[in-house]
């Protein structure tokens, strides 16, 4: 087991967003969390990334290390957990290349960094054409590619993806998910949260269903795709 989360609770002020959820990810796995808007999907990823504080009785263990001991930047630089945030959140005032380089801020392996940048450009050839362009001038699809590329540069043990399909035309969505598959085959585990349940369950091996801050269902993706409750609530009948 690579990442195990037990009794994860997160509150925003007096509002409880997560009521103690449990899940795990194995090495090299693709796992998805599906759920409606406001179910707590983004909060789950932010808690792993330590962008939002988890309540002290939560347990999050990554490769034997207590995640609660790490600050947000160390989760990335020391543990290799990267995070593609909701809405991409690129640095629009920086160039494509600068966005990629910034993600290597804490890395010391200079030669590998150059090889990784080459790799990103070989996965997303469009980014290479636009490497000296400001990220803010990219199209939606290119921005999502850069967001994934940037996460690839920052850490590669687990990639957390928050709604990567959002706002993308089907063809671009395919490009992004094909790239994610490639990245996964090279050894990066993926935790994907999506409103697009069908897409997520087809992509992932296992899935969890999050409702109002509770995980209500889990299983293999193909079982969840067949599950009548899931069908009714998330797959449009």
């Amino acid at each position, binding site marked *: 087991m690579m990442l195990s989360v037990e009794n994860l609770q997160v509150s925003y002020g007096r509002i409880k967003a997560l009521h103690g959820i449990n899940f795990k990810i194995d090495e090299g796995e693709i796992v998805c969390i599906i759920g409606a808007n406001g179910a707590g999907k983004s909060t789950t990823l932010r808690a792993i990334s330590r*962008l939002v504080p988890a309540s002290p009785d939560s347990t999050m263990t990554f490769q034997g290390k207590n995640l609660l001991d790490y600050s947000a930047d160390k989760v990335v630089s020391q543990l290799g957990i990267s995070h593609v945030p909701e809405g991409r959140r690129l640095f629009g005032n920086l160039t494509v290349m600068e966005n990629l380089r910034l993600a290597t801020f*804490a890395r010391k392996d200079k030669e590998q960094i150059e090889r990784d940048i080459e790799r990103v450009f070989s996965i997303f050839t469009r980014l290479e054409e636009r490497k000296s362009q400001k990220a803010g001038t990219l199209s939606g699809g290119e921005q999502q590619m850069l967001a994934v590329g940037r996460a690839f540069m920052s850490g590669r043990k687990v990639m957390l993806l928050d709604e990567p399909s959002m706002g993308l035309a089907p063809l671009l969505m395919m490009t992004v998910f094909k790239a994610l598959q490639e990245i996964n085959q090279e050894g990066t585990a993926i935790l994907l949260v999506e409103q697009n349940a069908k897409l997520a369950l087809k992509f992932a091996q296992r899935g969890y269903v999050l409702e109002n801050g509770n995980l209500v269902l889990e299983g293999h993706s193909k079982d969840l795709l067949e599950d009548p409750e899931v069908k009714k609530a998330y797959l449009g009948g």
Partner: protein
Amino acid sequence: MGEFFQNLVNALQYGSFLALIALGYSMVYSILMLFNFAHGDIFMVGAYIGFGIATLLVTLASFGALALPGWLILVLTIIISMFLTSFVGMLVERIGYRPLREAPRASAAITGLMIGIILETGNLALLGAKRVSFPALIESATYDIGGVFVTNKKIMIVFVSIILTLALHQFVTKTKWGMAMRAMAFDYLVVPLMGVSINTIARLTFAIGSALAAAAGILYGVAYPVLEPYMGIIVGWKAFVAAILGGRGSILGAALAGFLLGFIEIFVAMIFPSTFRDLIAYSIVLLILVFRPHGFFGEPYSAKLRL
């Protein structure tokens, strides 16, 4: 015509101080979305640290212990004071701002005011109300260029401030630290996802801004050798105006606005009685802001402050 150029020279010198102080204001404001109202007082602290170091080196030289020439003492004073004052800035960040990063902006703003008062009155308590004189480190030389009098000090002051401004611009645009600063100005909440510590960048921002304020303080001491604990208030406010006028996220903008303010003030004083100077000068600035609310080179985006 001669009067015009004479005033131009004076404006360049005065603008140099405003520009150097404005840089620190602008950096903290752009990168941390924070008005560091203590910055003018950091300028004062830098001037006093410079006074201390210069006095020490002059004393050592007079005993023959460390016989350095005056210009070298000045260079050393600038470098050492910039270094030491950067720690004052880091301390201010650590105790005054970091605990308040999630607090309402107004709380963080009044922290600056309070730290400013603490620095002023702390100085008063430590050194007393007596003004101190910055030691004369370099021989004054005046050159007559077609009726315009230029001193070696003025040339040095303008030169040093331009060099420091360009150096900062290079740092911010070319290094990875500068890249992280620009990223923070755009969207600081997700900067940790790049493996960058926000605290480190905030500390660095305060350190650099304070070091530049110290340089300004010493140059100020060279030009007007009388230091007093409240010397940073008015000039600090004006530099703050320059920082905003330059535009958020623009190093060169802040420096240019600093020089521009210097020009406006000096030239207003050339035409009108000096009691009218700030009244008219800052009415002009207000008018500029009405027509250019983002300042001269402000980036057209606003920082994201929510996840």
